[in-house]
């Protein structure tokens, strides 16, 4: 059907394609919408219009696009199917599947099984019975089965290794058709006609008159086969066959030995239109003789395998010599020369220590194709008759002259010989040793180069007679024959007129000798097919040993494999499947195809059947892809129309589009920027602000009221510092101890709120580091008034409890209530206590190391400083509350006892603390002692 495996579910819809020209006309008529452009000099264009007659048309490619779209839609609506299932015409009638299951179906068996599966599945869905008829099973009766059972059985069918004899099934089919006359026949054929198929087709046609028969054939690679392997003198040639000239043209034949090792590849190539070609293995003869199996690579069928047995291997040559004394000096014996010359290409059997009669008899029984008698004078009696018969049935008898032959012999020589030898170049001879001069054109030695170094000193001479020249295969320079031969029956008798050793000539020492023997062995190959009746009689039947299955793989012999006659040369049959038969040392190869078999296509014409190809792939519904392509085309069409009518520029105002693009790009760029840059920027700003001036800092607690008081208090203190001291600090800064850098600030005021959450571990670690690096934290619990009464009561105030919670996580040095002589009390003002809003609280600082030795000097030293600045100062007097001022300069909060100078002293305490943190302990220096004492005295 049309060559393409394409079918339509509703072919009628395809009529819609006729409408395409009309559509084309319509599309050409309706132009796309024009772009609208506001163009001030349009008035100029008014004058042009009459001149320019440009019919507005749809561009041809747009028309084509739309027509394609319409065509696609119509095609898709028609329901196209790629690889449509095989059409089975009648529903609800039984279906008989005739299955070719010979070797020629094996290479593509999977596809065939898929087709069978497909057919059975549809039979199942239609509720039809199925009869499976493997054409190799001639004995089984055909019966209908349920599709399920048929499917199981179909999978059990394996291709048979032999060629089908389809005609044998005809009776069974006839019976089946008689029983179920409505059955539909489907023949899954391999299309190969090897044996009796013409009869089968004719018979089938007769039976199925008026019935619909579907033959499924083709669509699969045509089978290829090997046959007629021939171990010629120069190469091992094998014929490669194929069914039809349209298959693959080239391939590779691979050779294996008996153990399955690859020995070599050779490519083959079919000439176009040819169904037969030849592959040649140009291997050394030793390797060639080891080849037992040839196969076409990647063609898995028994037909593509050619098995070779001994008949293809090197020829056996029997050697017997007449001189028994030779063995005393084995390296000079003719046996030695002959076996050395023959060994590379022939199986040499030497008859030792036996009479010529016995040896000849044994060799003939062994079926050697070639025998060499070296200087055997006379073979007589029964042995001579046997030998003659053997020669007449194809044996090659090669004789070498010698003293015994020269002294008179039998008649198994090509020419009549003179008695006595001829001596050349001897002391009693006029003649010089003669050289080998020529090879006869008729003989097997034709074409061989004539050596110049071969000389003959003695020879036996032929009686000159008519026909001597015809029988001469090689001659000496004086014209006397060196090698003569005569045909006897199918065989040939060859005589070398010299010995096989180096006594009479140096021929056995030269390379020509080997070549001559090789050609003689080749002669033996040509005639070796025939066997003697004795041989046939002695080994009549050989049991199967290793049998090929249909796919060309070796396996154990199946039960139905019968022994085969030892001289079997035909093609394999069902009873004698291809493979090796016989004992391992004498294997007989039975091949699928006989050497004369050729693959011929089946002639299905008489059947008048529907012929369908095999389906290689699954059936594919093409509607989906077609609709998708159509949709894509529709989108493209839409885009084209959009573009034709102005595209994006119509969507947005001109400037706006650029702005939108810029904005989008900008947004993208911003989004692409790493966000930490903002944080970096913020912290940079913070650092810049904090470091330009000295700032007092307070910790933001999160309690707005507390933070406001802290800020106002520190602002007040900053003002006070500016008024009284040289420190003109910047505006106080609130710190988030978890995030802000602390190291910019010499003093951090930390109001501790009772309910404040404890800072995180990371924040506390930062505080710890800050204090370790020289910073001072002024903790103010601001609750001196709330402290319970009694000694140590202030340490149990709620603020102190909260503070303790904070400090428990810090590495805090030992603390002490500020001693009177602490430098903190003297850094700017001389202070006694450090009041804030309250004056009952105690100020705690880091404990100073008191030196025992200096205890008596304590009174002399008015100030103790230690080495560093106390990293922690704790008070509960709410210093910031006392410092806090409203913007108008009035104090923000009332003081607790309300003494007149309490606020002043609170400020002074603040000044001292700030100065302490800024200047350190230099006030404790000894230099100032006298002045300080003096001032203290006042």
């Amino acid at each position, binding site marked *: 059907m049309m060559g393409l495996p394409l079918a339509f579910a509703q072919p009628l819809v395809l009529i819609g394609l006729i409408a395409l020209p009309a559509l084309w006309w319509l599309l050409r008529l309706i*132009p*796309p*919408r*024009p*772009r*609208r*452009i*506001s*163009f*001030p*000099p*349009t*008035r*100029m*264009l*008014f*004058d*042009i*219009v009459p*001149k*320019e007659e*440009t*019919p*507005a*048309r749809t561009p041809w490619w747009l028309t084509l696009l739309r027509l394609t779209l319409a065509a696609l839609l119509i095609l898709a609506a028609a329901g196209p199917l790629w690889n449509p299932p095989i059409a089975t015409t009648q529903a609800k009638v039984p279906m008989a599947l005739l299955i070719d299951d010979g070797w020629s179906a094996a290479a593509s068996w999977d596809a065939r099984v898929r087709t069978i599966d497909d057919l059975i599945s549809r039979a199942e869905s239609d509720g039809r019975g199925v009869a499976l008829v493997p054409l190799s099973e001639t004995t089984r009766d055909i019966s209908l089965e349920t599709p399920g059972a048929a499917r199981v059985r179909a999978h059990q069918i394996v291709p048979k290794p032999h060629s089908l004899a389809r005609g044998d099934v005809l009776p069974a089919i006839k019976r089946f058709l008689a029983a179920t006359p409505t059955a539909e026949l489907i023949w899954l054929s391999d299309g190969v006609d090897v044996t009796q198929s013409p009869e089968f087709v004719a018979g089938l046609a007769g039976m199925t008159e008026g019935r619909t028969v579907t033959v499924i054939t083709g669509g699969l690679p045509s089978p290829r086969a090997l046959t007629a392997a021939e171990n010629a003198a120069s190469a091992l040639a094998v014929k490669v066959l194929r069914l039809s000239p349209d298959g693959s043209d080239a391939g590779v034949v691979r050779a294996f030995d008996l153990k399955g090792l690859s020995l070599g590849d050779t490519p083959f190539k079919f000439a176009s239109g040819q169904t037969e070609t030849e592959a040649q293995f140009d291997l050394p003869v030793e390797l060639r003789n080891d080849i037992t199996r040839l196969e076409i690579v990647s063609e898995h069928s028994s037909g593509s395998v050619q098995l070779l047995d001994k008949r293809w291997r090197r020829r056996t040559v029997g050697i017997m010599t007449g001189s028994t004394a030779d063995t005393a000096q084995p390296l000079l014996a003719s046996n030695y020369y002959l076996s050395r010359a023959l060994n590379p290409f022939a199986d040499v059997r030497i008859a030792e220590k036996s009479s010529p009669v016995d040896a000849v008899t044994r060799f003939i029984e062994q079926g050697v194709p070639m025998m060499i008698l070296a200087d055997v004078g006379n073979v007589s009696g029964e042995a001579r008759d046997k030998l003659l018969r053997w020669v007449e049935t194809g044996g090659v008898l090669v004789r070498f002259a010698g003293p015994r032959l020269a002294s008179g012999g039998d008649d198994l020589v090509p020419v009549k010989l003179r008695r006595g030898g001829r001596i050349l170049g001897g002391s009693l001879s006029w003649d010089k040793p003669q050289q080998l001069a020529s090879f006869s054109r008729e003989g097997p030695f034709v074409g061989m180069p004539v050596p110049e170094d071969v000389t003959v000193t003695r020879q036996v001479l032929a009686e000159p007679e008519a026909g001597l020249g015809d029988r001469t295969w090689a001659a000496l320079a004086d014209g006397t024959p060196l090698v003569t031969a005569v045909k006897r029956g199918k065989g040939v008798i060859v005589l070398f007129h010299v010995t096989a050793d180096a006594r009479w000539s140096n021929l056995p020492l030269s390379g020509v000798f080997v070549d001559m023997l090789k050609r003689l062995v080749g002669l033996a190959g040509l005639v070796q097919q025939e066997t003697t009746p004795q041989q046939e009689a002695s080994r009549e039947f050989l049991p199967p040993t290793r049998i090929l299955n249909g796919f060309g793989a070796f396996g154990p012999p199946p039960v139905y494999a019968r022994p085969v006659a030892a001289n079997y040369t035909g093609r394999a049959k069902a009873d004698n499947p291809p493979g090796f038969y016989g004992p391992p040392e004498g294997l007989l190869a039975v091949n699928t195809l006989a050497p004369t078999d050729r693959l011929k296509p089946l002639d299905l014409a008489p059947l008048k059947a529907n012929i369908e190809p095999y389906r290689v792939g699954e059936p594919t519904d093409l509607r989906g892809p077609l609709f998708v392509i159509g949709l894509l085309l529709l989108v493209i069409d839409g885009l084209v129309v959009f573009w*034709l009518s102005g595209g994006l*520029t119509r969507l947005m105002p*001109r400037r706006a589009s650029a702005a939108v693009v810029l904005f989008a790009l900008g947004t993208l760029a911003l989004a692409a920027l790493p966000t930490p840059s903002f944080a970096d920027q913020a912290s940079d700003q913070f650092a810049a602000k904090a470091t330009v001036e000295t700032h007092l800092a307070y910790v933001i607690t999160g309690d707005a009221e507390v933070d406001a008081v802290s800020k106002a208090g520190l602002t007040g203190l900053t003002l006070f510092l500016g008024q009284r001291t040289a420190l003109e600090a910047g505006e106080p800064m609130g710190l988030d101890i978890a995030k802000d850098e602390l190291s910019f600030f010499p003093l951090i005021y930390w109001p501790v709120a009772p309910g404040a959450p404890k800072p995180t571990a990371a924040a506390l670690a930062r505080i710890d580091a800050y204090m370790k690096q020289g910073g001072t934290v002024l903790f103010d619990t601001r609750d001196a008034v709330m402290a319970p009464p009694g000694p140590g009561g202030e340490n149990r105030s709620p603020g102190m409890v909260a503070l303790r919670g904070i400090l428990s996580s810090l590495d805090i040095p030992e603390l002490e209530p500020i001693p009177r002589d602490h430098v903190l009390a003297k850094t700017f003002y001389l202070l006694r206590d450090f009041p804030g809003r309250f004056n009952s609280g105690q100020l705690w600082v880091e404990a100073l190391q008191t030196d025992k030795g200096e205890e008596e000097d304590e009174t002399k030293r008015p100030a103790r400083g230690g080495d560093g600045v106390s990293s922690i100062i704790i008070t509960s007097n709410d210093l910031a509350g006392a410092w806090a001022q409203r913007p108008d300069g009035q104090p923000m909060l009332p003081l607790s006892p309300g003494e007149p100078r309490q606020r002043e002293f609170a400020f002074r305490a603040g000044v001292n603390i700030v100065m302490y943190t800024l200047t350190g302990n230099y006030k404790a220096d000894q230099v100032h002692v006298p002045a300080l004492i003096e001032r203290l005295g006042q």
Partner: protein
Amino acid sequence: MADDATQQHDRGAVTRAVGEGRSLAASMPRLILEARRIAASVIHGLHGRRRAGTGENFWQYRRFVSGEAATRVDWRRSARDDHLYVREQEWEAAHTIWIWPDRSVSMAFSSPLMRETKLDRALILALALAEVLVEGGERVGIPGLLRPTSSRNIVEKIAQAIVHDTSTRHSLPPAFAPSPLAEVIVLSDLWSPIAEVRQMIAQLSASGASGHVVQVVDPAEETFPYGGRVEFVEPEGAGTVTAGRAEMWRGDYQARVERHRNEIREETDHLGWSFIVHRTDKAAADLLLKLHGQLGIGRDIGIGRRTPKQSEQRT
């Protein structure tokens, strides 16, 4: 013509005009700045033109040269001395310069590659020119909008007048009669029918005023870079034209534009006016210099060339 246009005004046009007025007002500061910048660069290169000539302001007394008309003697000055003196006025050749920036809808056009619309360019030119001229002592007016004035803040005045102008914006200046010594500068795209242009030039030059016609065009209006199927819409509502393949129209269009210009040029040459084509992708300062030069040359040459005529007329 104006009445027809007013009658044709529909509501949409009004709103559009209001919107355009707003956007014009919004862009005015930028235009003023730009105009000042350009004007400053031009003024920088100007020479003073203070010299004696016909004018209204006193310039100097000079000795009477015999042969002059006795009526020119300033007797009051001469009476104080033994010599006769002639009172000279400062030279005032062009008393008044009328600048007409076309603010019609069609001027709001700019092709996609251009940054400025033609209107922007025309206004910049008008403002800069006014600045330069007032700096040089001339009086500048806008027909129908602003009476001639030599006020220092002429730019602001013009800008305010333009922004607050609610009347219909016509392409060509209204018919008025400039004084014979006045000069008229028309900045317009001049895509109006040639008959209207001719009528305008004829009317303005009827009183003997000289003038300069500047056609401000967008590059796209010259190169016609359109292709494919395009419907061209006249922005002032004159109609539409659909070109099947616009690229095929290019040659004809350019020829037509060239013919239009030749017709205008013919008219201006005939009257001694100048005709300049200015593309908005060229620098505004170039045109300003050129125009200023034309003013000066026009004056000198105009006087030289026109004097016989005028004397003929006078005599």
